[in-house]
């Protein structure tokens, strides 16, 4: 029998990276919030990589911060090495990535949640969602505790019916040897939610003393460290540890090949679909058999532990095979495994059942976030948690939900991809998923999202004022640079030649010189007598915005082009079988997803451009 315990506006189920962002956002927006976790000792745990950021993921973290989320600040507080990836490939793809101290990060986030006003953190497994008339009314825990709630956010990660595989051994488990969540899946199914099965995996953790670091390539962090959060000062940030690089070889591949039949992936015992973009080592060797070697990174798990993580070596092969193939790697010949690599299967939803607010289409007040929505990665999870948390709180206040456009952010792109295109395997963010890469740079996340964060109520007055000062400084300096002419002095021409670009013979606008790829805003400082003293972040923006102006304008034109299609609203709900010119597949897809406008319809896979043309003409004929 269940018993009444308490009432809340928002219940967050799960306290991983999605859960904590959701709970913190909802509580900060004034909603009375409770966050449930199966184990308080696993709040914001990193059961896989002890790192935050990376290509496109780093962008997500910057965006989370710009909107008023927590992940960026926590990463800044707990990192032990920081690197900006893709330097030299252009500002659009610069991506920040840090190694975090895993335990410190957990403790830090747990404390932040515990200290948060309006937020209660509870250890319990939620086994049932209560709903009446298609609206959430409460949740029930495994102990029978019943909570009346207005909204529930499901952020169950890999816990939902979690099943771990190592070779031919399988056992029910959450990640990192926690208990799995057993009951909730059935409750969701009863509510009419489609449940799917995905799989992911993690590499083994090995002991420091069993690694020959002398035989490995060392990889240091950046000397000039940039933080994730726009609020973190650059002062005093430092790298504490290096990481290391090693390579697999022909022998490693031979061991894996000979034992491939013992992998549950290949014997068919795993039914879940694994991530294409984060494959296990056996997957990589089978799929890219022409590659003579694969790279792996050896990364410390934290400062208070001797455990090292082997990035790139996730596997579900049996324990003895894991030991055997690792020991073929130069530097790991006497490696000792502390935790085995494993694959984990878990239940998740079909995100096409969600709206752009991350609320389920068929149940008011029920939201999904993180791996439960079919993604992979802490950053993707946190981004969705933030959006779900914001929208759950707004729902409770009777406000309309917020949605982010593809052209505003990677977060918007992520959610639009999930809701409109859906995903057939765990979705990982990549820069190539955005058609507006040059607009969605990690350096300008604040410009894109902080005004919205302020409007929502997650950005403080103080921060917003500082943001405004920064934007004003950027604007003023750009207009000064554009009107300032530099004379062809011998010193300037010497610099131009030295940088490999043509000399000037007449006065030239400073901005025209900055547009030359060889010349930066900073290079011209000695020739620019009136240059004001500006913070690094402002100088960076001035340089980028001038240098890339033409490209940015092109992308803005494309945004406008798409906006026209987004403004063409489709009726809802509507039976697309009525339009005979549409292909059968497209009728079915449109009926399921019920896009709000032509722009969304055009992104649904299976809806061809011809179908979109049919919709455009049909709309204009039915005005």
């Amino acid at each position: 029998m269940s018993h009444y315990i308490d009432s809340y506006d928002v219940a967050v189920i799960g306290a991983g990276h999605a859960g904590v962002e959701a709970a913190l956002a909802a509580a900060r927006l004034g909603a009375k919030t409770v966050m449930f976790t199966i184990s308080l000792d696993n709040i914001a745990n990193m059961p896989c990589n002890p790192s935050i950021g990376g290509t496109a993921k780093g962008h997500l973290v910057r965006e989370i911060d710009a909107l008023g989320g927590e992940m960026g600040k926590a990463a800044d507080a707990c990192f032990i090495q920081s690197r900006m990836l893709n330097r030299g490939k252009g500002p659009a793809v610069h991506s920040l990535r840090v190694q975090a101290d895993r335990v410190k990060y957990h403790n830090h986030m747990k404390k932040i949640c515990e200290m948060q006003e309006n937020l209660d953190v509870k250890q319990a497994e939620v086994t049932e969602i209560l709903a009446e008339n298609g609206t959430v009314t409460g949740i029930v825990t495994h102990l029978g505790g019943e909570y009346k709630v207005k909204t529930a956010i499901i952020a169950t990660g890999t816990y939902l019916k979690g099943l771990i595989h190592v070779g031919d051994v399988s056992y029910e488990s959450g990640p990192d040897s926690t208990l799995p969540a057993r009951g909730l899946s059935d409750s969701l199914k009863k509510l009419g939610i489609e449940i799917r099965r995905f799989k992911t995996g993690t590499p083994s953790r090995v002991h420091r003393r069993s690694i020959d670091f002398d035989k490995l390539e060392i990889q240091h962090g950046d000397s000039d460290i940039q933080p994730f959060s726009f609020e973190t000062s650059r002062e005093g940030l430092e790298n504490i540890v290096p990481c290391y690089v090693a390579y697999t070889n022909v022998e490693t591949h031979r061991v894996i090949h000979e034992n491939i039949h013992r992998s549950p992936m290949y014997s068919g015992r795993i039914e879940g679909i694994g991530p294409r973009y984060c494959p296990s080592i056996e997957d990589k060797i089978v799929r890219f058999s022409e590659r003579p070697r694969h790279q792996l990174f050896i990364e410390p798990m934290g400062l208070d532990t001797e455990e090292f993580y082997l990035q790139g070596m996730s596997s579900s092969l049996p324990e003895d095979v894991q030991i055997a193939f690792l020991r073929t790697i130069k530097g790991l010949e006497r490696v000792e495994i502390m935790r085995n690599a494993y694959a984990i299967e878990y239940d998740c939803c079909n995100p096409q059942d969600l709206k752009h607010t991350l609320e389920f289409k068929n149940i008011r007040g029920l939201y999904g976030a993180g791996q439960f929505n079919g993604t992979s990665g802490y950053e993707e999870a946190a981004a969705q948690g933030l959006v779900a948390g914001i929208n759950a709180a707004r729902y409770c206040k009777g406000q309309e939900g917020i949605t982010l456009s593809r052209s505003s952010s990677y977060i918007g792109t992520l959610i639009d991809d999930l809701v409109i295109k859906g995903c057939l395997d765990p979705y990982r963010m990549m820069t190539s998923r955005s058609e507006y890469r040059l607009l969605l740079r990690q350096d300008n996340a604040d410009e894109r999202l902080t005004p919205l964060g302020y409007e929502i109520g997650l950005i403080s007055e103080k921060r917003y004022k500082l943001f405004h000062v920064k934007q004003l400084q950027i604007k003023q300096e750009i207009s000064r640079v554009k009107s300032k002419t530099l004379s062809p002095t011998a010193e300037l021409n010497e610099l131009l030649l030295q940088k490999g670009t043509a000399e000037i013979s007449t006065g030239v606008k400073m901005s025209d010189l900055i547009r030359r790829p060889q010349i930066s805003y900073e290079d011209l400082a000695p020739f620019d007598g009136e240059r004001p003293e500006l913070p690094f972040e402002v100088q960076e923006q001035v340089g980028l915005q001038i240098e890339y102006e033409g490209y940015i304008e092109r992308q803005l034109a494309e945004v406008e082009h798409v906006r026209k299609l987004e403004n063409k609203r489709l009726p809802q709900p509507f039976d697309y079988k009525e339009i005979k010119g549409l292909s059968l597949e497209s009728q079915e897809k449109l009926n399921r997803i019920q896009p709000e406008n032509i722009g969304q319809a055009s992104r649904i896979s299976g809806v061809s451009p011809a179908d979109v043309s049919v919709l455009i003409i049909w709309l204009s004929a039915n005005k």
Partner: protein
Amino acid sequence: MSTDTAAAISTPRAQGGISVIRISGEDALSVADKVFQSVSCKIPPSEMEGYTCAYGKIVNGDEIMDDGVLTVFRAPKSYTGEDVVEISCHGGIFVTEQILRLIFDRGAKPAGAGEFTKRAFLNGKMSLTQAEAVMDIISADGGAGLKCAEALRDGALFRRIKTVSDGMLKLLGSLAAWVDYPDDDIPAVEEYEISAVLEAGIAELGELLESYESGRIVREGADTVIAGRPNVGKSTLMNLLAGCERSIVSDTAGTTRDIVEESVRLGDIVLRLSDTAGIHDTEDSVESIGVDRARKKLDSADLILAVFDVGSLITDEDRELSERCRNRNSIAVLNKSDLEQRFDFEEISDCFKNSVTVSAEKGDGIDALKAAVEKLYGISGFSADMGILANERQRSCALKAKQCFTDALEALKAGATFDAVTVLIDDGENSLLELTGEKASEAVVDEVFSRFCVGK
């Protein structure tokens, strides 16, 4: 729209043997019942099977307006995919228009421009590029024009664009992988690889754009001016051309092109011929208007056939005409007479793209002229199968794509970062996808259907 029944005259509004009225929509058959009494099969149109026809009377109550043949097409096996009735009337424009009005009175509404094709498109009977090709077939005059329009429908152009676009996509893919997996030891994309793909794409698009002019001439015909001093044989040449295949269209009065006299077909190309007043200085004010107009015409023509009499010495007028032909699509037509050749063509030959010798009297040299015109437009060896840009919309997409790839190449050579170069390639790729209809945009749809006329 799909529930409305629309009607229009689907044949050109010109005097002819028959005119066809097309009615399409749910009520097409019941409307037909009200205006048509079958003589041949005694059943009303609504009881006729698809793909059958009947001879009968077109009636307004008791009044017989015309007799004609009615053909029934049943949905979805019709041009529009709806029930369609086509009535062939015999009574000329006035009567046909009367009948159409009657059909409107009986419940059909007037069809908008391109409405039947739009319906066909909405009902899944054709793709957007097919719809576009339908438009080109309707407006194609010459034989080769029709072939080109058909080839487009079958995808010759599509295949050529696809080759370029696939190359770019592959390049974008490797750039993306290299950027998205910095830790995965994916080989860096080298500058020379990017420029190779870009250069190949630019070259292919350049070829397509160059052949656009040929395609346009094949499709639309060439505005051709026959110019020369009085009495050099212009009229004889005109007659010679007109004689080899009598005019297809004769000009109707009241159009703006009051200089146009005749359209003739030379091989696969339609020449819209204008004879002009000679270009010479004159004191006479009336004549000077004519000369002025002739100059303008000369300056705007697609093709100039400058006729010279080889029996006389070169004159200042000949020289002025030659200068006006410089850098234009011009052919010197040297008219041979029985007299001794006194004309020094060498003096002016560099003004012309080509020259031919004809004997207007004897009627020979036409084949040489035909060959010269075809060579000028690159039409010799021009085959519809090779895929060409068929219209202004396609040309502007190809042009934009070429420009983007050229910009990308320049940016690359200037040392711009790859993310910026990628934006330019993306932009060009989008234009190509718009060209082939693989990217939907409102502009494309509007553009395609705006070119349709009523009745199609």
